[in-house]
């Protein structure tokens, strides 16, 4: 049987004290006859399990509060009044406590609990997905009575019932441990599943007409100690003993949650969260958990392709690479490096980004960028950077960025926890309500683009000033609105840093390895004003100044906020090379398409938003003949004639991804500590060093706004038109769809009812979208989710160079 971590949290380690002076928090207890030192506040079950005495349990979970519901963890405890049976998940150690987990009384109680839990359990293990990795099954074997004496009719419920698009519930299997319901309430804050009925008829249920539509619903499936909750994407796909697994890191967003990647017969079948204490505490968002379906998608690019008169046709790698190399050499010879632009690299590994950065250096292009005009300037990474732990333990958390629940969901969980447990006070600056607004101590609504003024007046407030001065401050900074200039956020961040000079900054840039890519050579290199970033590159291309546009896992047509600019750029660039995993609007326009290996098909390292470098595992073989990005870059780098990598180039002789990892630690100063040995030594990863930089000086001129206009806010929802979602069968229908959201009272002003299509007219273009009344949107603001499936396209009316986008909304 594979070792599938249904619950991989490390129990707090109980260490022997070596210092001569006694630890004031040390508590001496006797566990099964041996002296053990525990820490004050430790639960008895944690102390027992940490010292090798396994205690059977179901409801106890180290990342959630104890409820003492299943009564399975009963052990005998003596606190001076004689041995008593006690639930070990509910009592903390006290001095001289005697704990016996194996006494006949404890064993009898544990055996009795198993018998009762199995009384109404259907024992349909042969057809249950959990069979083989089931805590109830395992513990029935370990401590159960071995036979059932229950001859009454068992409870019957309809089985299974879907409680959301992703999760199914089989109430017959449920042992009512309160884990899923506690998770939904305590951890996710989406109290959408609860107990209904009473006593023997107690059951887990959703509210009528309200599905368990939580971004975190997959976690309940993982922590369910029986097969009551199953996930649609994995149901009946494999038996646990057929699964092979490797630990890896999710690169769906930049939080970098640790996962195990599981496959059977060379097909990715499941990701499970791993409890990484500094990062994800075992949780994953549903997008990250279920988007393995995109890797298995039948639409994957499996072969390189070359454009001929007949259109794009499949080609051999040697032919395609010769074409690509020829295009680069030709452009260098005819127009020079300034007519080549390389965009992308944030979707891959550190090795991919490093190799492409090295290739960009060899070509010496002035245009390179791992972001697509949807982030913040790279100097953000040079500010005094915070870790997630520092943010989640800071006395003040300042939010100057996107809705974290939508863009960095597990960071949202960590910060929500900080606020809920009263460790931190959240001060949020936002144009609309976000997932964290209800947990914020102060949630400041500002006119889109006007956050600097909002910050300035907030720090003039005595309460807020006192709070900022009361302890450590972490600012979470990202791009809150794709329809406004990033300058607005930069200026607000600078104002906040001026008020709290000691504050640390956690970059909330979204794309999986954006920090790694920006740190390893894919950040624009030009001076402020002439950066050569993605918008500059696309503008140059639109003006016919770019002959060769190289897209490394980048799709400007769906990811650049200014779609119109992207469209003109791709039309204006003479040639396009696209390296990607799936066909996209951009690959359709390419002259050479190189099929890239996807997540799970390549190993290497990745860097999360803290700068934490962790390993990626190759779990399955690549589809078709696809290659990892780094391999393509290295091969191109060796074939550029005068511009080729020299013999002493760090990538000259690489034969495997490990060689690239070594080349990074040998040549990238920030990654000098990130050796393979160091990575092998700590599954939580190795922190890369951070550069020092100052934010660029920006001036924000917020134009006045016609009172008939609505100011536009565009940002991302968790589920959108991105490949990981659009190519995942189970996720594709979860995208909310393109729409213009206004305050319900503004619907009257426009003179329409919900759902009606309206015209949104900006200075630049007109979009037609259905309108939705939404209480999270203040009056005078229109909010639209980015990159959504649907008929209308909000992206058409965004101007990447404008400070703000104002729209007039008209009835059709």
């Amino acid at each position: 049987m594979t070792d599938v971590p249904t619950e991989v949290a490390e129990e707090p380690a109980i260490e022997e004290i070596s210092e001569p002076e006694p630890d004031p928090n040390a508590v001496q207890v006797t566990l099964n006859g041996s002296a053990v030192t525990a820490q004050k506040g430790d639960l008895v079950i944690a102390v027992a399990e940490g010292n090798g005495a396994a205690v059977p349990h179901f409801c106890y979970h180290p990342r959630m509060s104890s409820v003492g519901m299943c009564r399975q963890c009963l052990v005998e405890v003596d606190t001076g009044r004689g041995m008593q049976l006690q639930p070990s998940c509910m009592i903390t150690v006290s001095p001289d406590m005697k704990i016996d987990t194996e006494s006949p009384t404890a064993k009898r109680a544990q055996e009795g609990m198993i018998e009762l839990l199995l009384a109404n359990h259907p024992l349909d293990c042969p057809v249950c997905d959990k069979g083989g990795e089931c805590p109830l099954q395992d513990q029935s074997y370990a401590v159960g009575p071995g036979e059932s004496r229950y001859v009454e009719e068992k409870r019957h419920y309809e089985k299974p019932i879907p409680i959301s698009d992703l999760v199914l519930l089989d109430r017959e299997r449920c042992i009512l441990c309160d884990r899923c319901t506690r998770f939904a309430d305590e951890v996710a804050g989406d109290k959408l599943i609860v107990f209904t009925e009473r006593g023997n008829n107690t059951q887990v249920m959703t509210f009528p007409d309200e599905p368990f539509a939580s971004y975190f619903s997959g976690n309940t499936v993982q922590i369910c100690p029986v097969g009551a909750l199953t996930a649609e994407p994995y149901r009946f796909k494999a038996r646990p003993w057929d699964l092979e697994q490797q630990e890896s890191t999710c690169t769906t967003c930049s939080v970098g949650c640790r996962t195990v990647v599981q496959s059977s017969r060379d097909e990715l079948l499941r990701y499970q969260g791993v409890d990484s204490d500094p990062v994800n505490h075992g949780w994953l968002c549903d997008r990250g958990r279920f988007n393995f379906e995109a890797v298995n998608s039948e639409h994957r690019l499996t072969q390189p392709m070359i454009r001929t008169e007949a259109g794009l046709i499949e080609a051999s790698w040697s032919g395609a690479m010769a074409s690509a190399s020829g295009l680069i050499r030709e452009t260098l010879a005819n127009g020079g490096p300034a007519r080549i632009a390389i965009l992308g690299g944030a979707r891959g590994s550190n090795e991919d980004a490093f190799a492409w950065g090295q290739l960009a250096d060899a070509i010496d292009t002035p245009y390179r960028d791992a972001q697509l005009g949807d982030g913040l300037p790279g100097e953000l990474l040079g500010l005094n950077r915070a870790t997630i732990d520092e943010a989640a333990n800071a006395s003040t958390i300042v939010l100057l960025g996107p809705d974290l629940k939508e863009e960095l969901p597990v960071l949202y969980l960590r910060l929500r926890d900080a606020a809920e447990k009263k460790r931190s006070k959240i001060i949020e600056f936002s144009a609309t309500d976000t997932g964290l607004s209800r947990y914020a101590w102060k949630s400041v609504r500002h006119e889109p683009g006007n956050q600097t003024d909002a910050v300035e007046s907030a720090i003039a407030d005595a309460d807020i000033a006192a709070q900022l001065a009361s302890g450590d401050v972490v600012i979470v900074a990202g791009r809150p609105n794709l329809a406004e200039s990033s300058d607005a956020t930069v200026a607000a961040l600078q104002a906040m840093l001026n008020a709290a000079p000691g504050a640390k900054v956690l970059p909330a840039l979204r794309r999986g390895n954006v920090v790694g890519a920006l740190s390893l050579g894919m950040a624009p290199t030009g001076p402020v004003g002439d950066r050569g970033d993605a918008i500059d590159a696309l503008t140059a291309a639109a003006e016919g100044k770019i002959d060769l546009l190289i897209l490394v896992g980048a799709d400007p047509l769906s990811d650049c906020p200014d779609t119109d600019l992207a469209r003109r750029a791709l039309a204006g660039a003479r040639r396009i090379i696209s390296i990607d995993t799936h066909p996209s609007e951009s690959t359709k326009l390419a002259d050479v398409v190189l099929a890239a290996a996807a997540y799970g098909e390549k190993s290497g390292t990745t860097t999360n938003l803290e700068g934490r470098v962790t390993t990626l595992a190759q779990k399955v073989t690549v589809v078709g003949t696809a290659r990892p990005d780094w391999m393509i870059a290295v091969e191109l780098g060796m074939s550029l004639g005068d511009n080729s990598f020299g013999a002493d180039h760090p990538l000259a002789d690489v034969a495997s991804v490990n060689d690239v990892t070594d080349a990074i630690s040998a040549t990238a100063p920030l990654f000098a500590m990130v050796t393979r040995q160091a990575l092998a030594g700590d599954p939580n990863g190795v922190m890369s060093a951070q550069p020092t930089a100052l934010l660029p000086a920006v001036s924000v001129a917020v134009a006045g706004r016609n009172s008939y206009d609505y100011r536009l806010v565009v940002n991302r929802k968790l589920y959108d038109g991105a490949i990981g979602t659009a190519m995942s069968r189970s996720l594709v229908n979860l995208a909310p769809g393109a729409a213009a959201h206004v305050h319900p009272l503004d619907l009257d002003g426009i003179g329409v009812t919900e759902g009606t299509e309206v015209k949104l007219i900006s200075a630049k273009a007109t979009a037609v979208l259905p309108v939705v009344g939404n209480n999270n949107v203040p009056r005078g603001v229109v909010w639209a989710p980015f990159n959504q499936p649907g008929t209308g396209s909000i992206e058409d009316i965004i101007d990447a160079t404008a400070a703000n986008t104002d729209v007039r909304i008209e009835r059709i």
Partner: protein
Amino acid sequence: MSHHTNSQGAETHDYIAGFYIGDRPKVVTSRFEYEDSHTLERFLATDGYEGLKKCLTMSPQEMHDEVRNSTVLGRGGAGFPAGVKWGFTPQGVWPRYLVVNGDESEPGTYKDRLLMERDPHQLIEGCLIACYAAGLSQCFLYVRGEMAVAQERIAAALNDAYAAGYIGKNILGTDFSVDIVLHWGAGAYVVGEETALIESLEGERGMPRLKPPFFPAAVGLYGKPTIVNNVETLANLPFVAINGSAAYTAIGTPTSPGTRMVAVSGHVKRPGVYEIVNGSTTFRDIIYGDEFSQGIRDGNDIKAFVPGGGSAPWFVEDQLDIPFEGKEASAAGSMLGSGAIMVMDATTDIPAAAYTLTKFYAHESCGKCTPCREGGTWLMRMLERVIAGHGTDADLDQMREVGQTICPGDMPHASSERLGLEAVPFPYKMTTICFVGPSAWAPLHSALTLFPEEFEARVTKVPKRVSIPVTALSGADA
């Protein structure tokens, strides 16, 4: 919920006629003889709110000491001294609350209901005295949802008392302010357990909380220090305030002072609620005494009786001469609990009687703890089969096995000269958070232990199944 429009109906209860007999001390039932005992006019005419007035002339500490010295024992079931309980709240944590447990739903128990219906102002006065003495700023009266008349009368009494300045800001012109909120229960037996009651009051499912850490006195309603007192407990306080603790302890015995409300039901000639002298009155007095229940119906013999509410282990006639006193009852193998005696005469079908009680507790399980949720219903199902004549002796063994999982170790029971049984003293051990789970087993255990022949007569004997250890079947390594 039953509709209630006829408050007149509550004024004629033949079965409580016992109140009017004899010249016994009346601590909490002094106004029961009046038709209009629930009105403010009658209350004020009969020393009403005099205890509060006297209390307000004392310091809170003096009043607290008075209650502590009177040793008023909690009347909800556990019998813990109220004055001591009040002292458990941590100093300097505000706000702190008084929660009145009026969710009386123990089978056989209906004393609090009468105290609430007949003399709501006495209860309110008790609440005010408790708040003053224990330093509590707000009181929540949690009254069982099914008690419509009690709800109605308490609501009316609260309105009258507010209007007359006995509740609210600056009571009787002093700087003592308390608000009292009436809350309707939603129909769950388990909410009589104090932490489940607090959950219910907060709007959550009525499920008990773990102690520790949720000792209400420290972490109670809304996480604040909370005193949870029974209705009868508080109803004693006006007497203590007016007459002093010495007058109170002069009644009853040193360990069980004062009087006690006892509800008698079952096969007696005159069921009812009686205020008895605490500690010295015996079960025989209560069941056979002329001023109380006047003996068994139709001149039958007594077979068994439940001494303290449906969850208590049973007594038989061997225990009739034990006084109604907590420690004596414990030593004899049961408890006084909520003060409800249910009498079964010789015609009683013992397995059926046990079934009634086990079914009640299985039904009322909140579903939190496995032994209660699964075990209670399992016991009920087996008993159902046995009563229907489809059981085997293996079922009787299995009942004891399930019972052992709910209550590990020796289960308390009464002695029986007939069977040559020695008593096993109360209390039992339990694997559940609260007493609902053990309560499904306790009556059945008593029935099985004290009347085994009635069960054995109903089951067929089958050869014992040979149990093959799982290790031998599968070779699995446990």
